[in-house]
């Protein structure tokens, strides 16, 4: 009988997991930043989660801790998925890179560094991937405004036109 998320037994050793949430059949493991790499290595070696599908980050701005890192793992032999969540605070937005466990985290973590500003320790090549290399700031944080130019209506069209940096030659 195939394993389903509600029936699969997940026993990470020595308290690597702070808590577990199950929502509609999806299992999420919440863990602390220091145990992340140990947990990922355990899941990869012992529990056969051999594919890292995605690494993303969410900004819950007024809440503290502010950033929620999400690692989605897939197991090809067992055909089940699991999610690992780590919360990071804004003043200490550093975390161990998952490249030691899964090489596919390389560009995914570069994207998070570029757009959210979380620094990854021991990352082999941490630099911007989507924005220009000399760009200042991290665009997907909540304090950065969504639009860069006002919407032009008839009452502000001339002002926008006057202030816009056109190239003359």
């Amino acid at each position, binding site marked *: 009988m195939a394993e389903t998320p509600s029936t699969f037994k997940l026993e990470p050793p020595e308290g690597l997991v702070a808590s577990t949430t199950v929502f509609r059949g999806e299992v999420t493991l919440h863990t602390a930043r220091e145990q992340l790499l140990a947990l990922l290595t355990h899941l990869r070696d012992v529990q056969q989660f051999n594919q890292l599908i995605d690494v993303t980050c969410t900004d819950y701005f007024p809440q503290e801790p502010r950033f929620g890192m999400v690692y989605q793992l897939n197991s090809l032999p067992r055909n089940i998925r699991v999610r690992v969540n780590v919360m990071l605070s804004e003043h200490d937005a550093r975390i161990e890179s998952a490249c030691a466990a899964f090489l596919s985290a390389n560009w995914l973590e570069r994207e998070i560094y570029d757009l959210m500003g979380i620094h990854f320790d021991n990352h082999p090549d941490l630099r911007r991937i*989507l*924005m*220009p290399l000399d*760009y200042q700031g991290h*665009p997907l944080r909540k304090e*950065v405004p*969504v*639009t*860069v*130019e006002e*919407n032009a209506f008839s009452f502000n069209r001339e002002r926008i036109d006057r202030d*816009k*940096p*056109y*190239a*003359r*030659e």
Partner: protein
Amino acid sequence: MGLEQKLGDMGIVTTSLEKAVGWARSNAIWPLLFGLACCAIEMMSTQASNYDLSRFGMELNRASPRQSDLMIIAGRVSRKMAPVIRNLYDQMPDPKYVIAMGDCASCGGVFNNYAIVQGVDEIIPVDVYIAGCPPRPETLIDGILLLQEKIKGEKITTWK
């Protein structure tokens, strides 16, 4: 060109010269192969056989900016691409023309965010703007004809 200083205003000679050079330049424009995003598909289909651009003189698109005189910015320009576009524009020899094809090249289009330049005229000077998302091939041809009118109307004093 300095011709006007040399010949003075010789009336009918300079007028005919302007007309001849304007006619020659407008009917033999070579575009630079520069499609960025979805508008490039419409540009390709305009170049293809159904709506033919070769009948306007644009038989071939040159891949090198040094050999082309028209840059059709077809598609959205990201902030990472902006210095590249400026570089290519600077490498084109005079006389050079720019058509901003589509909404994203004209004004940023639907993308009002951190990644897209709000109109390519923040980077290079544009001669003709074409609206549409994407503009139909007939619209692109209309823009090119408008550019040809503009080139035909150039006076000898505006030559570089």
